[in-house]
């Protein structure tokens, strides 16, 4: 998980990792393959292994939920229409949206959009899943549903998942390895247990910014 204040560079880092932003220095390795050393086709192959959950869902407005989920299958597989439909509906069922297939994105709530976006991301069975603030704009209950879904899918499909968030509940709920970004730098790195015990001032200011977390700290 990558955490940090707003404007600290979390989304920029994520966009650099998936090739949406160009990098000035360094390298981005996917199983030893440096993304930025690859040619267009090489990058395309890596991108086919990536699933991404955008902050707003980034669903295609002109397509139904089912078409959105089946879209990557249409582009990169030779499945028949019924096979694509079956796969899309299986993915929608997996994210607990079995009856939403004929709806358009405009007819969905924020949480449903995120779930459809997860279904679309897993439709092509990616090796890596990147999530950009999956809980933004969601109520606490729906946030937990999305967090758990990400965790379950990560374990079930053996995916490497990277989540960007500033929601400490998510960190505690599903975080394994945590990186804290501060003013564009990798400021702190550790486990979920470590972050609650650290005495790094910037990390503490961020983690214990809410009363709830402060109260939790006193219990440690």
């Amino acid at each position, binding site marked *: 998980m990558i955490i940090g204040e707003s404007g600290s560079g979390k989304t920029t880092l994520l*966009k650099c990792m*998936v*090739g*949406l932003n160009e990098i000035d220095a360094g390298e981005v390795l996917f199983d030893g393959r440096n993304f930025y050393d690859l040619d267009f086709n090489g*990058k*395309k*192959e890596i*991108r*086919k292994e*990536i699933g*991404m959950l*955008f*902050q*707003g869902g*980034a*669903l*295609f*407005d002109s397509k139904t939920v089912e078409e959105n989920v089946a*879209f*990557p299958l*249409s*582009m*990169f597989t030779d499945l028949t229409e019924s096979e694509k439909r079956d796969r899309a509906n299986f993915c929608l069922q997996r994210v607990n949206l079995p009856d939403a297939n004929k709806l358009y994105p405009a007819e969905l709530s924020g949480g449903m959009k995120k779930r459809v976006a997860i279904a679309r991301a897993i439709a*092509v069975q990616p090796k890596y899943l990147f999530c950009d603030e999956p809980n933004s704009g969601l109520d606490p209950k729906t946030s937990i549903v999305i967090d758990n879904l990400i965790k379950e899918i990560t374990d079930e499909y053996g995916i490497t998942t990277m989540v960007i968030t500033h929601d400490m509940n998510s960190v505690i709920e599903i975080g394994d390895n945590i990186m804290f970004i501060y003013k564009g730098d990798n400021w702190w790195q550790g486990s979920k247990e470590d972050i609650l015990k650290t005495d790094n001032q910037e990390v503490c200011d961020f983690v214990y910014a809410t009363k709830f977390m402060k109260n939790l700290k006193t219990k440690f």
Partner: protein
Amino acid sequence: MNIFFHFGRYYILIKRAFGKPEKLSLYKDRIFEEMYSLGVGSLGIVAIISVFMGAVITIQTAFNFESPLIPPYAVGVAVRDTMILEFSPAIVSLILAGKIGSSIASEIGTMRVTEQIDALEIMGINSAGYLIFPKIIASVLFNPILIIFSMFLGILGGYIFGLMAGVVTDFEYILGITYAFRPFNVIYALIKTAVFAFIIASVPAYHGYYTKGGALEVGRSSTKGVVYASVLILAFDLILTQVLLV
């Protein structure tokens, strides 16, 4: 310097748009979808404008031809040549730049600010190719049909309203529209239309594709797309007229 920056970026985008498609069959479907939404959806406005412009040109021309040295069939000649040479290819293209251009820029601009284009890129899809190529091809293929439709309706509108207003007779008008007809004029109009169609689809698409920000910027991109497309249509109208007719 700014103009070179935009020209270079536009060139790179169009080159990407014409890159190898991921799946040809999907692009074919997209072209037909775009033909329907951009082309068929414009039939109504093109029909209304063409009929009324044909009628107005007929009545105005007849009103201004007072000299007895000018034969009455000259009204038909004037309407035909105005519609074929300039009104249908250039003025209708300007109107389409407003209608289609704003729709293309705002659609692609909204896709940009809502990260839909990023989503395409992440999937390994050439977003420029998937979004812009079908719009350009649909426009270049369908706009000439719209323009021929406009020529026909303009001349028909002139005929109907000319007769109703009593400014021209049936025989004089038909003689006029067939008198000294040069088929090359239609070819010239279609060449112009194809070039204008490319501008109408590609320039607003460029402005939409590079939109940054939110809803306000989408509106600005849409306006810029229409303005630049209109200016380029006028500039290419002059250039093509010079090259093809002179």
